[in-house]
């Protein structure tokens, strides 16, 4: 596996990225290119059917694909990296090796279903549950929404509650490996602003069958640990978006003459480019370091959380800078910066939003778990004057 060849494998995907965004559909040829490149196997050990690339090389492979087309990247990496790692990490390889091989070969596409219609990060509101069916087997019921690969996926790793009658370990939660091509599963697409070619939508489970060995009980604390794989891939997506934005800025600043000199001769423009260069380098180096640790078997969860919060917000800032440097051209549909501008925000929100990540990071610094209490802390302090007078009613 020569990582340096990946960019070459993805040139066709890059050439189709704009059209894919316009139509909101991933060209079938993209998936074939991803499969042929060997990308789907780089994240996994040989024993699991992978090619066991080191963490630094994994990041290079990811960035190659994300630079070519963020939508294709999200769809493919969600399947092989996040779903693949969850199946490998929490399942039983002796049992689930065929399931994993279907993802790594590209024969099937995986989705990771966590969020429900009524909530984002607050798992307390999740209702999807695995319980006993009428025939004594296990079934899953509920609805997951805003899920990558939901409309087109074949297999979902679903975070679900365990009905107390089937919760042998008392964890209360499980990962359920659910076949999406069966009666009792309904899928639907959802509109989204960016990453438009990425399949995204919801799935309803109405007593859909799940084999007992495909129910993996997990303590809820493990959820964030597993999600860290997702934070990593979303971070690399963001680094690629920021790098692509910087690339377009540099090209524009070199060629566009303004006030009698190329834009790039202006100190203010140089400042924006220099700052971006440093921030992207810093984010990429952190991504490489945490991926290296992760591939070597260490958690690095908190550092990945830091990376995710930083890199995703950087991508948004980078595309805003790109609009500033390009001017109004960049806001026209079809302009590459306009696409990047729309693609960036999903990364901030997907797989734990920044606010939630910062709470986890602080917890790792010794502040203890997040404490949520209803707002009452101005009461009795003498500082709540506005709350007690008409002028303070907002």
């Amino acid at each position, binding site marked *: 596996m020569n990582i340096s060849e990946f960019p070459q494998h993805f040139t066709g995907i890059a050439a189709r990225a704009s059209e894919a965004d316009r139509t909101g559909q991933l060209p079938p040829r993209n998936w074939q290119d991803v499969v042929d490149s060997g990308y789907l196997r780089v994240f996994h050990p040989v024993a699991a059917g992978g090619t066991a690339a080191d963490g630094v090389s994994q990041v290079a492979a990811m960035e190659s694909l994300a630079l070519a087309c963020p939508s294709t990247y999200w769809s493919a990496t969600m399947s092989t990296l996040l779903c693949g790692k969850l199946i490998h990490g929490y399942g039983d390889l002796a049992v689930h090796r065929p399931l994993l091989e279907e993802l790594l070969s590209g024969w099937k596409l995986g989705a990771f279903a966590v969020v429900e219609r009524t909530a984002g990060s607050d798992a307390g509101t999740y209702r999807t549950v695995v319980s006993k069916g009428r025939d004594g087997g296990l079934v899953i019921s509920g609805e997951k929404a805003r899920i990558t690969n939901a409309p087109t996926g074949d297999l979902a790793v679903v975070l679900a509650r365990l009905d107390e009658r089937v919760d042998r370990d008392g964890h209360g939660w499980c990962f359920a490996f659910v076949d999406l091509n069966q009666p009792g599963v309904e899928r639907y697409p959802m509109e989204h602003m960016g990453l438009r070619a990425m399949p995204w939508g919801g799935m309803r489970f109405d007593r859909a069958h799940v084999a007992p060995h495909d129910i993996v009980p997990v303590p809820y604390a493990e959820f964030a640990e597993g999600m860290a794989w997702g934070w990593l891939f979303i971070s690399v997506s963001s680094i690629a978006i920021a790098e692509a934005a910087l690339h377009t800025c540099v090209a524009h600043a070199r060629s566009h003459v303004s006030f009698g000199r190329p834009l790039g001769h202006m100190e203010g423009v140089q400042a924006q480019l220099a700052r971006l260069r440093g921030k992207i380098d810093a984010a990429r180096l952190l991504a490489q370091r945490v991926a290296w640790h992760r591939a070597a078997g260490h958690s690095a969860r908190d550092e990945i959380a830091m990376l995710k919060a*930083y890199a995703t917000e950087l991508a948004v800032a980078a595309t805003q800078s790109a609009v500033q440097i390009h001017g109004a051209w960049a806001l026209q549909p079809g302009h590459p910066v306009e696409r990047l501008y729309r693609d960036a925000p999903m990364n901030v929100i997907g797989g734990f939003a920044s606010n939630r990540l*910062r709470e986890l990071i602080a917890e790792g610094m010794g502040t203890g778990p997040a404490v949520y209490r209803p707002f009452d802390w101005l009461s009795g302090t003498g500082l709540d004057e506005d709350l007690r007078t008409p002028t303070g009613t907002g």
Partner: protein
Amino acid sequence: MDHAPLDALSLTELPSLTELFESLHALERLRSEAHAYAALKVAPNTAERDRAGHWDPQLFAGLATIGLSGGALLPPSHGGHGLTALQTAALLDGYADGSQDPGTALAAIAHGLLCAAVVHRLAPETLRRRLLPALASGEQICGISLLDTLGGAVPTTATATPVDGGGAVLTGAKRLVVNAEIAHQFVVVITEHAYLVDRDTPGLTVVEGLGPAAVPTCTWGELAFEECRLGPGAVLGPAVQAVPLLAAHERVFSSAVWLGAMRSLVRHSAALAGQRRLFDAPLGHSQAVRARLADMRTRLELCVGLVHRAAALLDRPGTVPSQHTATVRLFTATAAQAVAESAAALFGPEALADGHPVHRAQRDAAFFAAAGGGPDVLQPVIAAPLLALSGAVRSPKADR
């Protein structure tokens, strides 16, 4: 849009990064040793030395215990420790963390990692053989103006007139000289060349004590040259070789010091969040406070990667791209100021008490950000290669 450049992936850099990450455990051990030494031997009187602007020669000599002598980077054949830049950066990181004293670290950088490094790289063999063991042992101390790391970006304040038979006559002044009070020799860069100037050279006056209102635990001063005649043996080498080396070392090693300084701030801030109460709850229960702490730690981790990469590049043969070293300096200085400001926000008014570590850190971070050229020097250094700009490429309109 054409596909973003493939070299943006820095694919050629991957093998060296793997080597770097494999060495992290050993680097952490060095960092911990330096931290333990500094916490025990240096930190107890940092606040007092800072308040009094007191220089402690014994403390400076003791830095050799952990390898931070003038010979840190010098080979054993010249009396040095033969450390790599990565190892040296790890020591500076640990030292600054444990000591909360960036001043003595700056003195060590100026002496060993700027002056001794330039002598080692540029001086004739006879001078190297004579001088380097003395610099390594601390028998001789070197000083230098931090402005000499900026090359021609700032106006020249001194001139060097060549004289027949070699050598030069120096006239003018050098400001912002580190180790001014203690140095036996000064490295000075004036127009075409770098020179080694003995403190006792006729025509040189060292004005001690003139320096910034920051980093008071090293000694500052100015050099005044009045018909200061140097012999041919004082010429170290061409400025075009000295300045890039000085700039690279100043950027990377001073940034390494601020890794340690930020670690200390982050640790103390997190501890405070667990102790202090606000609105009848621990400060650390506030989501806003938690976000501030998380961002402080994140900035630190981002800087670690940049410093390590740049230090690893210093250890490789060949020229280190200025873009990389300038990036480290710009990013770390911005992060250091932000982290110090966040710490100040958490500590509240007490952080502004005279001698408070957070107040000192804010003051010194501001100096760190301004020295080394600040953003107005570093940004074009980073952006110019990005834009493939050079002095020879001008737009026709600009020429008219």
